[in-house]
Every structure is written in structure tokens, then in C-alpha cells.
């Protein structure tokens, strides 16, 4: 018994020692990798930190770009992806997540990275069209045959309607939802106090306030919560694609043109020496091939001609099934944009910051 005990001890000690050595070895190797891996000769690596719904788009785009870069420079490029709530992702980059490029849901989030000193001023003009290569909009996703007969923002104020939208405090998409609703009520000629009241009623009907757009879609689609989901256009079409015949898209009379913003993270690319490839990665988003890809994944391309090519040809404001040939873009809709709200800095301060209007609608009477 005693001998066995000693043997066991010896075994344990050796395993521990070996384990810790191995651990240290592999640990340091890993650190080395993330630092230098991006510079080696015939292959290069960049990190793209993006928001939730773009996962599928960038998975496809990365392949396209890798082919393009290989043809142009004879170099292999691999893109590491990171997805999450837009605000959270921005925060992590500001905190030292080594992102070569950020492709976030709104300019306000990229601003946060800039304010942390990682991106130089004036990044918005670095790429065409305010650095938003593709755009999107906010639409309603309802259950098959629209049982609650939801047609426009007014209907969301009815007491029998349960709404699903993420939390504007934590989700970029949710901020667009909120502003789209605001614009509609403003267009109805309501005064600011009346708009606040309407928005308040709307959020009283929100059943689940998820922290991100994907979470909200899951609550609505997979867990069967609520009657209507306020969603990114691309998320709504994707749900239609995944679950044919179960949902319908309702396009409200007024909405907002969402402009996701892309930027090169100056501090990181300078350190890693990846500026060239990172810049080309974002530039290539404007190429025709890439724009087509974006349209296939239900983002509105910035290329006007392509936009027309994908224009929806059906009638009415309800889309019950995916249009053939992917002609899905509804152009007959009153879209405002963030400039209407005086830009993101102003909009954030007024609506979403601590003590802003959004906070006040959840205050107890």
C-alpha cells in the first residue's frame, strides 16, 4: 500500500511538472503568434471586429477578399472574425482587443473607439459615402398571415400587440429601431412630448428586451415571443430565408436608413504593419463583386445601379416570401437618416445617454 502511494505521488508530481511546462510553453507560443503572425512573408492575417448580424456576410466576403488579395499581391490572407453586440465590440477594441479593422453597426460606436485614441480623426471621410459601404433599414417581422394585422408604427401602440426589440442602451440595431419610430411619430405631426408618450407606450409593449439584435431575433423566432419583431432588414430577410412560410415582412411607411460604419484601426495596423491589407479589405467592400455579395445577404448596396437591379417589383408593403432573383429592396419608403437627428453625438446625448429620453421612459411614475 505504501509503495503504491509513493508511486502515485511520484506520478502526480511528474504529471504536474510536465503539465505546467507544457502549459507555459504553449502559452508563450500563443502570445508570440498573435503578435508576429500578422507579418510573416507570404501569408498575412488581419482581425475584423464586427457586430452580430454581419457574421454570414463576412464569412462569405472573407473568401472573396482572400481570392482578390491573392491575385493582386500573391499573398495569402486570413481574416479572424469577432462578432457581438456593436457597443460591446467597440468597447473591447477600445480596451485593447487587437482589431485591424472595425465594421460596426453605427458611427457612434466607431466614435467611441476613436475617442479612446485608436483611430485618427476624420476616419469618416477615409472611404466613400461616409465610410458605409452598405446600408440597411428597419422593418417589422410578423408571424404568418399577420394575425394581429400590424401595418405601421401606430399598430405597435395597440394593447394586444407584443413587441420584441433589443435594448437601445446595449444594441446598435435597437438605437436605429428607436430612431425610426421617433421619426414616424414626428412625421405624424406630434410634438416632442407626444412623441415621448408614444415611444413610452411602444416600449411598454416590449416583452423581452434582449441585449443584442441576434438575441431579439432568437426570442421572436425560436422561442415564439411577441407578435412583431423590429429588425434589421437583413435579419428579417434571413429569418424569411431560414423559415420559409412562417413569417412575413411588413415595411412601415417610414423608417430610417441605417449606415453601418467601417474604419481602419490606426494604432493596431501601424503596430502590426497591416495598414495596406486592412485598407484594401475595406476598400474592396465597394467593388462590384462585393456589392453583389452584400445584396445577396440582404444589405442595401451603396452602388446605385445595383440598388436598382435588386429593386423589389411586387405590390404592397408585405413580403410573404423571398422574391425571386433576390429582387428585395423596397425603394418606395420614406427613409430618414441620422443627420435628421443631428448626427450620432447629438442623438446619443439626447436619447440614449444616462438620463436621456430612453431612460426617462422607463422611470417609475
Amino acid at each position, binding site marked *: 500500500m505504501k509503495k503504491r*502511494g*509513493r508511486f*502515485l*505521488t511520484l506520478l502526480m*508530481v511528474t504529471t*504536474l511538472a510536465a*503539465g*505546467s511546462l*507544457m*502549459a507555459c510553453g*504553449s*502559452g508563450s507560443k*500563443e*502570445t508570440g503568434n*498573435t*503578435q508576429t503572425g500578422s507579418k510573416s512573408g507570404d501569408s498575412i492575417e488581419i*482581425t475584423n*471586429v464586427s457586430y*452580430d448580424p454581419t*457574421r*454570414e456576410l463576412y464569412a462569405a466576403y472573407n473568401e472573396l477578399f482572400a481570392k482578390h488579395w491573392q491575385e493582386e499581391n500573391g499573398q495569402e490572407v486570413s481574416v*479572424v*472574425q*469577432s*462578432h*457581438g453586440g456593436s457597443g460591446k465590440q467597440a468597447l*473591447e477594441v*477600445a*480596451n*485593447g*482587443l*487587437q482589431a485591424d479593422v472595425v465594421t460596426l453597426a453605427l458611427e457612434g460606436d466607431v466614435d467611441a473607439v476613436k475617442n*479612446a485614441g485608436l483611430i485618427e480623426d476624420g476616419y469618416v471621410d477615409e472611404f466613400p459615402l461616409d465610410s458605409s459601404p452598405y446600408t440597411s433599414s428597419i422593418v417589422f417581422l410578423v408571424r404568418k398571415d399577420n394575425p394581429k394585422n400590424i401595418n405601421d408604427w401606430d399598430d405597435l401602440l395597440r394593447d394586444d400587440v407584443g413587441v420584441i426589440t433589443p435594448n437601445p442602451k446595449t444594441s446598435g440595431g435597437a438605437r436605429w429601431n428607436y430612431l425610426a419610430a421617433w421619426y414616424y411619430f414626428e412625421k405624424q405631426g406630434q410634438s416632442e412630448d407626444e412623441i415621448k408618450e408614444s415611444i413610452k407606450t411602444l416600449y411598454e409593449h416590449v416583452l423581452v428586451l434582449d441585449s*443584442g439584435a*441576434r*438575441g431579439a431575433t*432568437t426570442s421572436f*423566432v*425560436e422561442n415564439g415571443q411577441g407578435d412583431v419583431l423590429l429588425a434589421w432588414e437583413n435579419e428579417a430577410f434571413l429569418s424569411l430565408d*431560414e423559415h420559409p412560410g412562417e413569417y412575413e415582412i411588413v415595411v412601415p411607411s417610414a423608417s430610417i436608413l441605417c449606415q453601418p460604419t467601417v474604419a481602419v484601426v490606426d494604432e493596431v495596423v501601424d503596430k502590426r504593419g497591416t495598414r495596406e491589407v486592412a485598407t484594401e479589405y475595406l476598400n474592396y467592400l465597394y467593388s462590384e463583386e462585393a456589392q453583389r455579395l452584400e445584396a445577396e445577404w440582404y444589405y442595401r448596396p451603396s452602388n446605385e445601379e445595383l440598388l436598382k437591379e435588386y429593386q423589389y417589383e411586387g405590390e404592397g408593403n408585405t413580403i410573404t416570401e423571398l422574391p425571386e432573383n433576390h429582387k428585395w429592396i423596397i425603394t418606395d419608403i420614406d427613409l430618414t437618416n441620422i443627420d435628421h437627428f443631428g448626427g450620432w453625438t447629438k442623438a446619443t446625448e439626447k436619447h440614449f445617454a444616462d438620463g436621456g429620453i430612453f431612460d426617462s421612459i422607463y422611470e417609475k411614475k
Partner: protein
Amino acid sequence: MEIRNDKGVVKWLLIGICTVFLLVTLVLPLVYVIYTALRDGLGAYFAAVKDQYAVKAILLTIKVVIISVVVNSIFGIFAAWLITRFQFRGKKIISTLIDLPLTISPVIAGLIFVLTFGRQSAIYPFLEKWGIQIIFAVPGVVLATIFVTFPFISREIIPVLTVEGTDEEEAAALMGANGFQIFTQITFPHIKWAFLYGVVLCSARAMGEFGAVSVLSGHLCGRTNTMPLYIELLYQAFDFTGAFALSSILVIMAIIILVLRNIFEYRGKKEMES
């Protein structure tokens, strides 16, 4: 075993209540995970498991578990030795500090490391200069995991050592044995099973940690995504088969670990009795 033979009713009633409770709270979620994983057939299951990012996530998880267990083993043994074998001032504080990670929200655990090693921290420039990336890289994931499993091993050993007393060791020390000899020949045989049990618990918890790791990992696909994070990612991408397939692997790993635990405990008890 029974102090008296409870007439069936009470005994079986109690057993029944417990069984139903555990079935609903523990077994049902497991069944659901496995059911969903296999819903689309075995082909889809294996395709999901063999996906390159899934494999990377599994390997990373195993690596993180090994490192945390090794670090916490070393710490746990020394901490238990310190606390049960010596009298000194501040012992209560140390003992509380060791237990603290158990009661701290994983979110806070992640947050404190971001604050300490993140870009706005005072030591970031130094880390930068030496080219060390801690948070949003593997070391950060490891640190967070070590933190949440910190007390697991020491907590298992301390009660055993307390009960054991110090007589044998003192005797050995007086006879001139050195610390290493005392530990390996006298102390370790006593705590062997408690130690292994701690290792098992520690690896189980390390495998499944989500909150703290989620704050610290940066979610770099194929780099810093551990299994729980990758599962969340798949889930959010509506790939339920994939998400639950990977979950089922974690479940299987958990069950293996629990079986090991049972064996260790059983052998430990047998040895105590003999």
C-alpha cells in the same frame, strides 16, 4: 445502513420527491440538449463537431482546463498547507480572500482583469512594450478561468488536513525529515482523494465557465473562443444543431468527469475505512 427500517412510505416518498426534482431540474435540460443535437441526424451532428472552428474551440478549452488545474493544484496545496499547519496573524483574511472568487459574479471577475490589464490601465504601456497581450488573448481566458476556479482545490483539502491534525508531521519534522519528505510521505497520502476530487471539480467548472471568459476573450473565432463561447456563437447564428452538438460534447466530458469523481470518492472512502 438505515437506522431503522422506515416503513416504505416515508422512505419512498422522500426518494420519489428527490428523483422528480432532479429529473426536472437536472436531467431534463440534458435530455433536451442531446435531443436537439441529434434532431437532424448523426451526419449533421458529426459535421458540426468536426468543423474546424469547433475543433479549435475544443482544443483551446482542453488547454485552458489543463493550465488552470495545474496552477490551482499548486496553489491549493500550498494554501491548504499554510492555513492548516501554521498559526499566524491575518490567516482569517487570507482564508476569506481565497474563498472570495466563489462568491464574485463572473461578470465582475472579467471586468477586474479588463481594468487591470486593459488599455486604460496604468500597466498597459509596459505590457505593450514587451509585446504581451493578456486580455482578448489566450492568457486572459486562462487568467479568468483560474480566478473562477481558484478556491476549488484548497477548499477540498483544507477540511481533511484540519481533521488530520499536525502530530504526525511534527513528529517527522523532529526526526529530521525535510518539508518535501513530510509532504510526500505523510501529508499527501491523506489528502490524495480530496485533492483528486478538487481537481475534478476544478476541471468541470473550468470547462464550462462562460461569464468571465465572455468579457475577456474578444470572441476571436478560432483563437480565443472556448467551447461555451463558440456554442453561444452558433446559437446566435441559428445553428441549433451545431450549438447543441458541441454542448453535448461538454455534457459527455462533464459526465466522464463526474464518473471519475465517483470513483475517487469511493476509493477514498474505502481507504479511510481500512
